[in-house]
């Protein structure tokens, strides 16, 4: 196994097996007096696809928001690509989010975090925040359209007029417009018809990760079954138990 990170020349395409994309240590976060995440540790290697499963209100979305710096307060260390992005003191939510996003985070939020007056095309443009992504955004948009063909006809339509499934496609497409190193996908199948939800998950699985990693929070374990590298349970603000895909599959068969 080659862990010699120092041999890697800056500027060359990164080819580092076992590099840590995300390293969370002792993270607590919440809103006002409410503490949602309790001393949570999580390490994500590059190339990994991880599923986080858990019930409503147990902190899956808050974990993602804490990584993005969007919770009311948080403490603990969050290292993204080796750089510290966690903050100890309470801060205005979202004050540093754009810097974290520039450091390589793509958050695909749950529900309708969209700009309802922008067209689908402008939406995809707005996802291309790095200079390089902005320059070849045309090619990237074509790639998104290959993943989500239904969007092709809707490019000039304001997103506020789309259906729920189409909005979710736009939201995910916006997150996929950059070369982020960590994709956080929050409940991709929530509120969608089963067939559409399945095709959205298929699209996420089809994304070539390369050196990036992807965490998918999902309530429907069956959708992730055997398709992610690890499944982690989340219960009252803590990560409980960890299972590889094979193990999860095994348990599923016994049950």
């Amino acid at each position, binding site marked *: 196994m080659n862990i010699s990170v120092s041999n890697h020349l800056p500027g060359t395409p990164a080819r580092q097996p076992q590099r840590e994309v995300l390293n969370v240590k002792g993270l607590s976060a919440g809103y006002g007096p409410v503490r949602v995440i309790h001393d949570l540790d999580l390490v994500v290697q590059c190339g990994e696809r991880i599923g986080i499963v858990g019930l409503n209100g147990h902190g899956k979305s808050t974990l993602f928001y804490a990584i993005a710096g969007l919770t009311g307060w948080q403490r603990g260390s969050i290292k993204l690509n080796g750089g510290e992005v966690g903050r100890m003191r309470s801060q205005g939510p979202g004050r540093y989010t754009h*810097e974290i996003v520039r450091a390589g985070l793509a958050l695909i939020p749950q529900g309708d975090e969209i700009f*309802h007056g922008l067209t689908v095309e402008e939406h995809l443009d707005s996802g291309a925040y790095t200079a390089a992504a902005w320059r070849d955004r045309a090619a990237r948009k074509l790639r998104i359209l290959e993943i989500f063909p239904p969007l092709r006809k809707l490019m000039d339509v304001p997103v506020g007029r789309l259906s729920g499934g189409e909005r979710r496609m736009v939201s995910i497409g916006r997150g996929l417009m950059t070369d982020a190193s960590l994709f956080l996908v929050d409940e991709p199948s929530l509120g969608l018809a089963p067939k559409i939800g399945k095709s959205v998950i298929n699209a996420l699985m089809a994304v070539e990760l390369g050196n990036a990693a992807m965490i998918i929070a999902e309530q429907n374990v069956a959708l992730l079954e055997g398709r992610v590298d690890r499944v982690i349970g989340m219960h009252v603000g803590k990560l409980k138990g960890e299972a590889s895909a094979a193990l999860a599959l095994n348990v599923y068969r016994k049950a």
Partner: protein
Amino acid sequence: MDIWFIVSNTIVLACIYGTLAIGISITWSSLGLLNLSYGFIFAFAGYGAWLFAQHVSTWGPAVLAAGILSGALGGVIICAVGFIPIHDKPNFTIRGLIATLAINLIGTQFLLWWFGPRSKNLPEIFGNWSVSLSGAVFTADKVGNVATSVLILAVVLRWMQSSRRGLEIRAMMMNPHAASIVGIGVRRTSFYVMGITGGLAGLAAVLLSQTYYISPFGGLMPMIKGVSIALCGGLGSVRGAVIAAIVLGFNEALTGMSIGGRYVLVTQFVVIIVILLVRPRGIAGLLDKAREA
């Protein structure tokens, strides 16, 4: 003749107030800041243009540019002093309101202390000519006012439609939370927004100075009108602000002609209240095709 006078006055007023209202509307919806220091920026830009005319050049376009630039400078200063320190604190809307109001009061007192109470006069920017067209007389300042404000507004709106920064500003206007998720920094964008809206205030200040004078408190009335037009158009909607500016400009011209200029504010607020009673979201409520988020 009467009709033409009302129509031309309506258009001129609509252009100037529309410029102010669009600035206030953009600031409100993208930064969540009801910028009550707009009156100060207005006066500040007026004095900037006056200083330029006194010491550098009296060439019209240059004076206009100086006014716009000093307005933009004023906007950036207000952003650094009144927006950046408090924008992520709780209760920002009220705090921002009070902070900008305080800046307005302090700033106008400062202008009064520095320049004195005597109002200043800008040189004529558009020359002194007039065109007569089938009974209607168009004077230079009217034609110039309309042409300049329409041109500059068109350029600004075109820029907001087509450029990357414009996309950022529009995204922030629609959903600031989602904007931070896609990597749009509030603080950097706020400087663009305040610079541009300050520039629009500067434009309005120079244009209005062709009819009135520049004085420390000269920005108060335009600001009140700008805020109420922005409210009437539905805060956050550029098209709504334009339509509201036309409606209220017409109201002002009509009131001035029929029952006297001092009743303008009375009739104006009656019109605004009636519009808001019928359409609580302002005129934009009629235009918005998207579903509510």
